């Protein structure tokens, strides 16, 4: 069980000590060419989370490899590189170039960024292309915005992904308190934080059942209890995103809360928690406690 940061939610260069408090650092999504991202305003708070329309601001692959990666290599924690593109070839190119770099432990395929006009081609194609370009572990990151996310997970598995990162944000809107106009210049943005948690948990549960692949669970995780639930739903590691903004100490806090919670739940080591929510029919388990069914 490892605690990572969610891609785009931490810059190891401006906050190295926080990056070192993680079991692995995940970069903001890198694209083949540099991107400034969307016009500001590009973040907005909502009652139980936040919206972002950063739009994959990043230095581009070349500059990332020449200026960013070397520093990350000296961090002292494993580095995962998140990659994104607008065509299958982009992913192949990115993975091919990253493959040579020993500092890179794994590659996360962001096939689900909601903030770019261009829609990425089918998940399967992307994963297959990436698989062909690198031997490094591939984690495919999916959005929960579909009728059945497990179909995408199965497609990714068939195409050779080693694991899944669940979930990315889902589109939301916030209106300015005074003007009633969208706060974000792009109008809608990706919803993250506590409001996303039940949706993310459902995605992790469904994809674990459908694929059995290792899953990095994320979406509104703010406490050790949340982390434990993601593990129980099927995650083998968890990632912290929005919570890092209000509590940069979250990695350490969540880690200790998780150990306590796992103890309390009688699980012992958090590693034993993965998949606990599956198994014996929950209906039965429920009956022993609250069954609203009167058939004794």
């Amino acid at each position, binding site marked *: 069980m490892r605690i990572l940061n969610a891609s785009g939610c931490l810059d190891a260069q401006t906050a190295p000590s926080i990056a070192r408090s993680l079991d692995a650092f995940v970069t903001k999504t890198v694209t083949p060419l540099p991107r400034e991202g969307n016009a500001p*305003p590009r973040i907005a708070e909502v009652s139980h989370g936040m919206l972002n329309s950063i739009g994959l601001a990043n230095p581009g692959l070349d500059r990332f490899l020449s200026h960013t990666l070397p520093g990350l290599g000296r961090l002292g924690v494993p580095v995962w590189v998140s990659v994104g593109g607008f065509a299958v070839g982009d992913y192949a190119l990115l993975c091919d170039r990253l493959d040579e770099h020993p500092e890179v432990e794994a590659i996360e395929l962001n096939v689900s960024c909601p903030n770019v006009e261009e829609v990425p081609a089918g998940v399967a194609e992307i994963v297959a292309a990436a698989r062909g370009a690198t031997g490094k572990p591939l984690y495919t990151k999916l959005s929960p915005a579909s009728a059945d996310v497990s179909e995408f997970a199965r497609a990714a598995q068939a195409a050779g992904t080693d694991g899944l990162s669940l979930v990315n944000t889902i589109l939301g809107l916030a209106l300015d308190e005074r003007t009633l106009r969208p706060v974000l210049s792009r109008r809608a943005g990706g919803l993250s934080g506590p409001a996303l948690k039940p949706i993310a948990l459902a995605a992790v549960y469904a994809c674990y059942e459908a694929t059995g692949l290792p899953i990095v669970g994320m979406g509104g995780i703010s406490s050790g209890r949340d982390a434990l639930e993601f593990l129980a739903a099927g995650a083998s590691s968890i990632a912290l995103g929005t919570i890092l903004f209000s509590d940069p100490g979250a990695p350490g806090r969540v880690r200790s809360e998780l150990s306590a919670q796992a103890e309390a739940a009688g699980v012992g080591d958090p590693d034993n928690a993965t998949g606990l929510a599956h198994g014996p029919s929950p209906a039965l388990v429920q009956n022993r406690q609250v069954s609203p069914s009167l058939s004794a």
Partner: protein
Amino acid sequence: MQRARVEVVGAEPVGPYTLLRVARRGLEPGRPGQFFMLEAPGRPLPRPMSLCLAPPRELAFLIDPVGPGTRALASLTAGDELRILGPLGNGYRLGLERPLLVGGGIGVAPLPYLSAALGGPPALLGFRSDWHAEAAALVPAAEIVVEPRLVTEPLAELGPCGYSVLACGPEPMLAAIARLAPSAQLAWEAPMACGYGACYGCAVELRGELKRLCVEGPVLAAEAVAA
């Protein structure tokens, strides 16, 4: 950048604003113009606040209740606890020949601490009303201008007389000052989720490029801004 859970020591109204005083708990006050991220009770994200005053063992912030986060902060009372992070960003460059502080509205917030650091230089403060102008009491040697008159008017009258302007206030005021005093240091604002470079939400356009204000600023040289 340090983190702490601190206790509210006091919260006093200053005109429409609230002066929120918290225990220092080992946090450095930092340089004038730097800011802290304050947990806003009941809100998912913290709020950036310039350090206003640094009394012994305290940090004080001047808060303008413009929305949910600042309203939550303004309604804190002695004994409440909140998480705070800082000092963050780049403050004002000090050690100037003839400093002149210029503030507009809540832009007065960082000036009391800055004024103390500079030994009480002259200050020019603009406000929407006499009520808002009550905040001027926090800044020694301040000339007060109330709308319809704007701070930029007396500033223009001063002409190019060798003052080094250090300003904070609404964007149109800062933009005007940038034109009047190219050597000015200006403290800007942007919505911020993290304050320490993690979210890329505070992007602002500098020399034609989007940069993170919490990393490059919030205090910037006027030239840097010229679009």
